[in-house]
Every structure is written in structure tokens, then in C-alpha cells.
């Protein structure tokens, strides 16, 4: 054993350890990315195989599944039509976006254009507060406050599309507002100044210049909000009524894909037809969320600024 380590060795070592640091850092982040990709890919594969079992193994007709409103899995002659739930999911999603989009974008314009200093100071925390409330609490508030309110003042049972829409609209409002605010505030200053220089009023500037310029991002905000609404289960389940009939008015009870899954999946046994059709509904939700992502990609690719 040598008593002193030669300089070359020490230097080699230190250079090696620096290389190691570089390499470990790179490995770490790459690993993180790979795990995320792997998780997504495995969920897709898993849900794909599980979701198709009902059609492949149990012989449920996929066309009937998508187009029939007859959901009676436990009858002598079972029906596996999920149309009611697909319709319900789309109905609450679109309606809640219809309510939340103007509110969210309006709030964003207020925060960025009308009262940027104090508006943002007040409104931003208020909106962000909404994100932290668990969805079961939204559901419970809906059940306790909104359902009786609708029953007394508007009509129907109180349970139904309308109540579900309102609850969901509040839930997706923060998503839409936050993204819309970011989009509006990153618009270059010279757009506003150019418009004012031409003699436009503030409202003309907002309407004719700023909104069109930020439109792709605003649409992205709405689509992200819709994606959240589409996947929401707990809150909606408590207020929508979960009936199997196609709703004929906005006050009628309805059901969504997510609520039917959460109500039934624990009670059904693995591998039974009903369980498998519930997985198929999960697959529909996944496909829809891919659809939403593709839409967002398309919208943001159109952004010019």
C-alpha cells in the first residue's frame, strides 16, 4: 500500500466524480420522465385491455353499448347500453363550460385589463381558494344547499342536470380563470398601446384586439376546464340523481359515466360482465381525455404570438 496517492490518481478520481455527478443528475431526471411516460403507457394498456373485455370475452355488442339507453345488467335479458351516461357526461360538461367560460374569462379580463392591481390582489386568492376544496365537499354543499334551493325556486326534484351543472361550473372556474389570466397577461404590451394609439377605447381594445389575440389560449383554458368536468365523479354523484332514464329537461335527473362507475364498481365482482362494462366506461373516459388533449394541442399550435 502506498502512503501517498499520486496526483494523477487524485485528479482522475476527482474528474471521475464530477462526471458521476453530471451523469447522476441526468439519469435522475431522465428516470423521472421515463417513469411518468411508463405510468401513462401502462394505464392506457391496462385500461385498454380491461375495457375491451366486455366486447371480446362477454360478447357485448359495442354498437349497442354506445347507442342504446337500456342499462339493465341484472335483468333476465340484460341490457348494456351506456348512452344515457355518455349523454349525461357530455351534457353536464358542456353546460358547465357554458356557465364557467364567460365567468372565468370575464374575471381574467377584469384582473388583467380593468383593475390589474387590486383586482388581481383580491380575485386571484379567492379563485385559488376554490381549487383547494375537496370535491366531496362541493358535492355535500350542493346536496345541502343547492338541491333544496332548486326544488323550491325553480322546480323538479332538485336533483338533476341543472344542479350538477352549477356544482361543476364552480369547480372548473379556477382552471379556466387561471389559464385565461395567464394568457391575457402575457399578451405583448405593444398590442394594447398600438390599439390605444389608433384611438380605440379600452373596451374596443379588449374586444377587437386582446380577445382575438389570446383566443387559442382562452379556448385551451375552456377545454382544460371541460376535461376536469368530464372526469369529475364524487360531487356530481351527490347532486345529479343517477337515474337511468334519458333526461328530457335540464331539471330531470341524469347520470354520468363516472357516477355509474363509482356507484357500482365496488359491488360487482371482477370479471363479471357488469364489472367489465364499467371498465369499458372507464375506457371511454380515457379516450375522451385523449381527445381533449389533442384538441388543446391543436389549439395551442394555432397560437401566433
Amino acid at each position, binding site marked *: 500500500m502506498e502512503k501517498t496517492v499520486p496526483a494523477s490518481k487524485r485528479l482522475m478520481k476527482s474528474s471521475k466524480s464530477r462526471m458521476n455527478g453530471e451523469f447522476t443528475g441526468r439519469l435522475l431526471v431522465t428516470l423521472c420522465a421515463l417513469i411518468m411516460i411508463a405510468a401513462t403507457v401502462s394505464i392506457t394498456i391496462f385500461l385498454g385491455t380491461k375495457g375491451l373485455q366486455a366486447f371480446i370475452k362477454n360478447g357485448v355488442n359495442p354498437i349497442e353499448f354506445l347507442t342504446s339507453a337500456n342499462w339493465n345488467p341484472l335483468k333476465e335479458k340484460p341490457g348494456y347500453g351506456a348512452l344515457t351516461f355518455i349523454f349525461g357526461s357530455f351534457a353536464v360538461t358542456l353546460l358547465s363550460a357554458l356557465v364557467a367560460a364567460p365567468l372565468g374569462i370575464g374575471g381574467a379580463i377584469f384582473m388583467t385589463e380593468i383593475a390589474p392591481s387590486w383586482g388581481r390582489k383580491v380575485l386571484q386568492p379567492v379563485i385559488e381558494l376554490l381549487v383547494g376544496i375537496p370535491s366531496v365537499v362541493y358535492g355535500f354543499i350542493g346536496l345541502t344547499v343547492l*338541491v*333544496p334551493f332548486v326544488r323550491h325556486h325553480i322546480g323538479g326534484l332538485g336533483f338533476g342536470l341543472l344542479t350538477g351543472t352549477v356544482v361543476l361550473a364552480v369547480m372548473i372556474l379556477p382552471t379556466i380563470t387561471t389559464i385565461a389570466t395567464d394568457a391575457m397577461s402575457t399578451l405583448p404590451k405593444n398590442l394594447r398601446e398600438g390599439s390605444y394609439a389608433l384611438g380605440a377605447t379600452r373596451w374596443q381594445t379588449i374586444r377587437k384586439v386582446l380577445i382575438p389575440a389570446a383566443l387559442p389560449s382562452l379556448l385551451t383554458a375552456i377545454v382544460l376546464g371541460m376535461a376536469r368536468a368530464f372526469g369529475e365523479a364524487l360531487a356530481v354523484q351527490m347532486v345529479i340523481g343517477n337515474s337511468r332514464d334519458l333526461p328530457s329537461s335540464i331539471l330531470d335527473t341524469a347520470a354520468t359515466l363516472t357516477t355509474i362507475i363509482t356507484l357500482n364498481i365496488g*359491488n360487482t365482482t371482477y370479471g363479471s360482465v357488469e364489472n367489465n362494462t364499467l371498465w369499458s366506461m372507464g375506457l371511454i373516459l380515457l379516450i375522451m381525455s385523449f381527445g381533449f388533449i389533442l384538441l388543446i394541442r391543436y389549439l395551442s399550435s394555432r397560437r401566433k404570438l
Partner: protein
Amino acid sequence: MKNLKKFGLLMMVAMIVAFAAACGNGNNSASDGDNKSSDGGNKELSGSLVISGSSAMQPLVAAAAEQFMNDNPSVDVQVNAGGSGTGLSQVSEGSVQIGNSDVFAEEKDGIPADKLEDHKVAVVGMTAAINPKVGIDNISKEDLIKVFTGKITNWKELGGADQKITLVNRPDSSGTRATFVKFGLDGATPAEGITEDANNTVKKIINETPGAIGYLAFSYLNDDKVKGLSIDGVKPTDENVQSGKFPIWAYEHSYTKGKADGLAKAFIDYMMSDKVQNDLVPNQGYIASSKMKVERDAKGNMK
């Protein structure tokens, strides 16, 4: 070089996916526990026990498990809810030692019922529950069926208030619904209404909706927020269920795969002991199965 990197990345993704998939299939039996050491009666029990299934049974079983662990400090009992279907599936594939269910295993699709041993740890009685403002407290079975199939739509037809009837159902797959339909409605399919799963939510909805009717376990009829109906003049009480007079009740089952042994047997024996049956079971709102004077099989035939 760039292509090589891309290829490497792809390979790694593929490998991780394959690994994850393999894991997913492989670990079903990971929680089998080390409960083989406790066959002799005198030996102190040790090891761990995993129980899953019916969320309606979870409070009872969890309370019993807690007492059981106090008596046997080196035993670890885990009680998970998740639903009857989950419990039956998991016990028959061996991933838990005890699976709890509100319904007979024979009644569920895809469960090898002959491979499971049934332990009826408690009985739960249930009846139609109405909003107190409806103003009736007895209903004939015939009328009950008419109400639930939508042939009677206003309480005034039954001598109650002039209120539209609103049905509060359970989801198709629910054990409570199966029991109520079988013994309360003689198999008639209920008309559409509001559907909720949790007993507490159902109770809240019945309490707040004028003219609402649903079905609840006896343990949820302990205050005046909802009213439990007598059926054909028979009051919904534990005694009437035990004597076989009141028709709507079901067993709470604990299933084991094959004959119960080791820790699972010890725990089920404990559940069936007088200590639990006379004390915990009634306290949690169930009826002791040891006190039943009638018996019922999977097809619903009384003995």
C-alpha cells in the same frame, strides 16, 4: 448518435412498461400473511390478517378487529371496505383471507361459491323509510310494490299527505337493493328515481325531499329524521326479524377460501363469540345471527 439515443429511450420505456405489467399480474398473492403459526388453541396468536369487502359491514368488523387486537397484541388485523363484489373477488383469488359480503356468494356472477366457506356473522334488517311528513307508518306489501314500481305516484292514495312520491334507489349492483327487491318487492323491478349508494346520503335525501321513500338498514332509523314503515302491520324491529315475522333482512357474510384456518378461523370464532354477538353486534345496529330463530339459504327459502 441521435437515433441511437432515441432508440435507447424507447427501449427503456418498453422495458419499464413490461416490468410494470409483470408486477401488476404478480402481486395478487403478496398479502397472504404469515398466519400458519396459530393452529393450537393454547398458543398465543400472532401474524397478520387482511379483510376486505362490504362497506356496510366495515364498522362492525373494524370494531371487532380492534378488540381482537387488544386481546392478542401480536396480531395485526387490517379491515378494508371496497364493496361486497371486491371482497368476494379478492377472497376467491386468495389476496385476502376473509371477504365480507352483503349477499350470498352464489348470487354474484363469476364467484366460485363452492370453494368458499360462508360464515354468517350478523343479520341486518331493513325496511322502507319515508320522509316523516308523508304521514303514514304502515304499508301493505302490495302497496309497497305499487309505490316502488310507479303505479302509485301520490301519497294521498295511501291516506298520507298530498305529495308526489319520489323514489330513492340503490345502484343495481348493491346488496341492499338486492335484498329489498327480493323480500320487500317480491322481485319487482323498481321504477327510476334518485340513486345513491351510501346509507347516510340516502337518509339525508329522504329527510330533505318531500314525499321521498327509500330503504334503509334498521340502524339508520334511530331518530325522527326518517320513518321506518311497518309492513303488513309488522313493526321493523330486531325481535320481529329474529322470529321471522318481518321479511326484509339479509345476512352479513364473512367468506373464507376453503375451510377457515389459523388466524382467519380465530377471528371468525371471535366474531361468533358471545362477547361480540351480544355486545358489539347490537351496538352497531345489527342483529346477532346466533339469536335468529329462522334461517334462510342462498335462494331465499326459509327454514
